């Protein structure tokens, strides 16, 4: 089985870091995983994205995929850009604080969650990325909250370890967010 994810948003929203945490979680689950960023002359405030390919059968994953099983869009520009890339039957998970809840395609699943507002309520809007990662992980059902917490611990450098409890809290809020609002 192979599943691929695109995480996209503004430069500075932490999309590369969220992707790295997810990739780390898959590694801890003993799956093959490949992470790669959109690469070019990127800047803070511009759009940035990364792709994660998880695989439990092949030793080497292909890259530069035409479509994705899951897209996590943290801003409107990313939503618009990656909507056509979602596989038929795949998922578009979007940050409804910044993205209009419009469903242009009828062959995919949508989940809108106000992740930036939830992060604000937690007291730090910088937690948007990790909170939304919790939502994404829960919907995919491909890794556990416990593994993601260990992955966070792997990824945060020693001088940022003080932020681990807050990140774990954000992850939990996302992971336990009420999915009953999902309309398939």
């Amino acid at each position, binding site marked *: 089985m192979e599943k691929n994810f695109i995480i996209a948003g503004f430069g500075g929203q932490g999309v590369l870091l969220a992707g*790295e945490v997810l*990739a780390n979680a898959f590694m801890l689950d003993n799956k093959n*995983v*490949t992470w790669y960023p959109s*690469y070019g002359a990127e800047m803070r405030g511009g759009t940035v994205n990364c792709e994660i390919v998880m695989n439990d059968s092949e030793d080497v994953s292909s*890259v530069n995929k035409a479509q994705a099983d899951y897209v996590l869009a943290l801003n409107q520009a990313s939503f618009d850009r990656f909507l056509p890339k979602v596989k038929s039957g795949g998922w578009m998970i979007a940050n409804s604080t910044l993205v209009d809840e419009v469903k242009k395609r009828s062959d995919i699943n949508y989940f809108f969650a106000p992740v930036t507002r939830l992060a604000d309520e937690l007291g730090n809007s910088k937690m948007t990325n990790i909170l939304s990662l919790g939502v994404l992980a829960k919907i995919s059902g491909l890794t556990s909250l416990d593994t993601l917490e260990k992955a966070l611990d792997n990824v945060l*450098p020693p001088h940022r370890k003080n932020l681990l409890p807050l990140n774990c809290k954000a992850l939990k809020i996302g992971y336990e967010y009420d999915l009953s609002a999902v309309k398939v």
Partner: protein
Amino acid sequence: MTECLTKSKKVLTKGNYAIANAAVIAGCECYFGYPITPQSEIGEFMSGKMQELKRAYVSAESELASINMVLGACSTGAKAMTSSSSCAVSLMQEALSYAASDELPIVLVSVMRGGPGLGNIYPSQGDYNQATIGGGDGDYKMIVLAPSTVQECVDLTYRAFYLAHKYKNPTILLADGLLGQMMEPVEFGEYPYPEVDNSSWALSGAKNRPARVIRSYAPSADDQCEFLKKLHAKYKLIEEKETDWEEINTEDADIILVSFGSPARNAKSAMKECRKMGLKVGMLRPITLSPFPSKRIAELAQTAKKFISVEINMGQMIRDIKLAVNGKVPVELLNRPVGNPPSVEEIIERIKKESEV
């Protein structure tokens, strides 16, 4: 990032960090470099780690300086390296020719970006010719290793140090911007090769022995003839002993994809998909680009009906494939000039088209 020097545990890391970390484990004593995207993480890692381990790290004033510092360090028998990218590797060509002539075990990591000229920072394989043919003067050959995964970035960095010292020959690890920036789980383990004894030639100080000279100069035509014959006997030996490649499903294949580095990943997936559709497709991935697996490709040309070279350039490796195939069967090109490799879908499409002809 410098704390990732874990030998036993699996870690998720970027190709660039994997190369740098592996070089440290391989015993690299000196790193000289100048930053350039998309390989700057190598120098960043080295700037912390080498000082921590009391080894030499010099942030050189230019690439010209850094490669010549490597020559100097290697002439003392030290394990030394530099890393750079495309337009800056161009600056090093003179020194590579001297290193080949002086038989110095230098290791150069070249993480390709778009060219010619300043080009851009997107992934590319436009320096296949630069690495395998070389831009310096004279009849010399490099050893060129091409990783395709982050784990191979580790394994082939180890091999680069070993082969460079075993054969006293400049060795290039040729990666691309995609591999440099890509993260995958890797295991470093221990440096798997024996240490090479260099006591017979290294400039280690002439106390209690006659002084030695390493120089690139043969005063007479006869001397130079002898030297070149000796050098090329070495290249022949390297070709016989060290040529390496990965080969899948070639036995009964009508079409054989040939691809190295990051596009080889997509070629492999496309080949497997085509097999599911009943198309007889195989794949050969050169791991050493120099020496090139020409002999094996010539053998396969006896049974295959067509070869397709999959590259991120305007078609460079295809020339070596054609030389090996020697007109026996057609050799086609599926390329992307620069940027991400051709997608799996694109490769499948092309295989289908070529199967119909």
